[in-house]
């Protein structure tokens, strides 16, 4: 199982999910991607994105205006 990390600080919507989508295309099911984002819309967006792309949001936390989310690639 591989782990990836994406730094999307300063990137505007929909930049972070576009980066995540691109990363997930090369990942295998079960692989985990940690993504760091400063766009506050991402908190809701990542829920919808995971639901529609059949990936799993493992965790999400926000600290000092920075969101860190962990997403696992689905089957």
């Amino acid at each position, binding site marked *: 199982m591989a782990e990836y990390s994406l730094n999307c600080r*300063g*990137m*505007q*919507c*929909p*930049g972070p*999910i*576009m980066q*995540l*989508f691109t990363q997930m295309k090369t990942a295998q099911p079960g692989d985990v991607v940690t993504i760091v984002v400063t766009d506050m819309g991402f908190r809701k967006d990542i829920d*919808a*994105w995971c639901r*529609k*792309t059949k990936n799993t949001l493992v965790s999400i936390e926000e600290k000092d205006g920075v969101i860190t989310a962990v997403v696992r690639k689905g089957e």
Partner: protein
Amino acid sequence: MSEDKKTIIVFSGDLDKAMAAMIIARSAAAMGNEVTLFFTFWGLNLLRKPEPVSVKKNILEAMFGWMMPRGPQKAKLSQLNMGGLGTAMMQYVMKTKNVPTLAEMIAEAQQFGVTFIACTMSMDVMGIHQEELIDGIELGGVATYLGAADDANVNLFI
């Protein structure tokens, strides 16, 4: 009807409206959707190459071509343009806020596999030739668009 297909008619050539269309198109592509954009009327100008292309035109076509903006860099805001000042301010703010330019958004949408279709009737009426459009644009009529829209679950007119 499919859940993973979206279609957008890009009628407007305004900067703000075109940005909305491109942001939705790029997001949908990033959600794994098949996206088709149908460019008609003023929207066609967004697909023009920024530099003049020498093609044979009659006087009316040439006048239209001269009067209409060439490419996304020339698109203006639909409101508060103020002789170009508002548009320049918006472009400056977008740059400082790390928002891609409209041209970059279009290129990115193409990289993400969004299908761009230029309406052939509009091209004919406005005297726009395929050589004047950026690469990767398919030509089609309204039936092409309707065929795509029938299979999609979201269809927008912008």
